């Protein structure tokens, strides 16, 4: 349970970090909070030759209001999201979900950028990014580009970022004033990665019918999925959470693994989808 040897680099600027990543190629791994990378190194599932420690790049430790979205720097810790007054006021879904990540000591270190970069298919930040169609901002020595969440996550622990690119920030579009939201996960133990998690937003019409609804799920594939095909069927209808859960369950293709059978995952999708829809509608009703 000790990591393999590596060379340690501690760049003092983004330019220096990007130069290192370009020079060292895929022998190097960026290190942010280390709450996933270091366990993988301790178990020797990861054996990078070089670690590029990003923790001194304080310029990427920011949360700011950007018109219709909030921008979160890659080095922001989950605990900072939990405690942010700005997010509590402008995007309460984000802190509500961030506080379900791991445990306190994990959230003090783990970062938003690290979670997006790792692309664990059961993790909270990729799920939120897919739900909200977040924008992931990448930098490399050759320039900057932005990728939509739907295109960013390409598989289990796989993203559209190249080895010489760093995530510098992500932009999460805000909800409408009257839009309700809810998140619910099923975990084997408190603080574990979700077996299945569901997150929904709902905007109601003036007469209380469902206007726009969004649902995203994780734990049913190699990356989080957004179920527009399901939510669109409910536009203009009154809430029928049970039917919604059934249709969501029919729309996913989960897998068997050591943690849960496909049948259990499908059941969880049905129950959790119904619950988040119901709770999001309730929150929308309170806010309207």
């Amino acid at each position, binding site marked *: *349970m000790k*990591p393999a040897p590596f060379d340690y680099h501690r760049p003092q600027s983004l330019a220096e970090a990007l130069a290192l990543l370009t020079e060292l190629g895929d022998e190097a791994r960026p290190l942010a909070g*280390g709450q996933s990378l*270091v366990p993988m190194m301790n178990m020797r599932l990861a054996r990078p030759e070089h*670690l590029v420690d990003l923790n001194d790049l304080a310029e990427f430790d920011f949360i700011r209001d950007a018109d219709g979205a909030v921008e979160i720097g890659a080095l922001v810790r989950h605990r900072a999201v939990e405690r942010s007054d700005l997010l509590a006021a402008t995007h309460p879904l984000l802190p509500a979900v961030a506080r379900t990540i791991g445990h*306190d000591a*994990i959230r003090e270190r783990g970062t938003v950028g690290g979670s997006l970069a790792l692309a664990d298919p059961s993790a909270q930040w990729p799920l939120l990014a897919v739900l909200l169609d977040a924008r992931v901002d990448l930098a490399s020595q050759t320039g900057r580009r932005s990728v939509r969440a739907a295109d960013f996550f390409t598989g289990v622990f796989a993203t559209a970022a190249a080895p010489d690119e760093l995530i510098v920030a992500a932009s999460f579009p805000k909800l409408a004033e009257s839009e309700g939201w809810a998140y619910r996960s099923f975990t084997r133990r408190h603080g574990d990665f979700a077996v299945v998690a569901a997150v929904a937003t709902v905007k109601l019409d003036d007469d209380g019918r469902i206007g726009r609804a969004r649902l995203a799920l994780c734990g049913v594939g190699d990356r989080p999925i957004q179920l527009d095909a399901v939510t669109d069927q409910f536009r203009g209808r009154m809430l029928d959470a049970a039917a919604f859960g059934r249709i969501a369950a029919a729309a996913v293709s989960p897998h068997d693994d050591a943690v849960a059978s496909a049948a259990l995952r499908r059941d969880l999708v049905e129950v959790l989808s119904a619950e988040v829809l119901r709770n999001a509608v309730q929150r929308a009703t309170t806010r309207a």
Partner: protein
Amino acid sequence: MTKVPIRLAVNGEAHEFLAEPRKLLSDALREDLHLTGTHIGCEHGVCGACTVWIDGKPARSCLIFAVQMQGHEVTTIEAIAQDGRLSPLQQAMHEEHGLQCGFCTPGIVMSFEAWLRDRPEPNEGAVRDLLSGNLCRCTGYQNIVRAVLKAARQLRGETR
């Protein structure tokens, strides 16, 4: 592999020694600084036994490399008792039988000492929520919950 100079500030004291960059903070504390109060359990961030503070905030010392800590202040369990007197939480753990073998105890104390500073009136559910980040295989947790709630009462100035 090449050793590099590691500079660590622990419990207000500066230390310098040579170690490979792969040396975990947990191992550096125990092997190089002989601060063996920090216990090492799972070495992948699950059990919480190795919890210390970095700049006053709880963190798993098995998930941090010692070389990263230059410019940061590390606090370990050795700094919690003052002048040989147990902290109110340590005393409550003793009185309520919040430990048996004691292996998980330093991590639990480090988690809750930091937490109680910001939460003078915790409820039982919140205590259990935080305690889920620390594994204990002896006590069944009930007495730890009782000890934390007792320490909170004492820190608020209530006698019992």
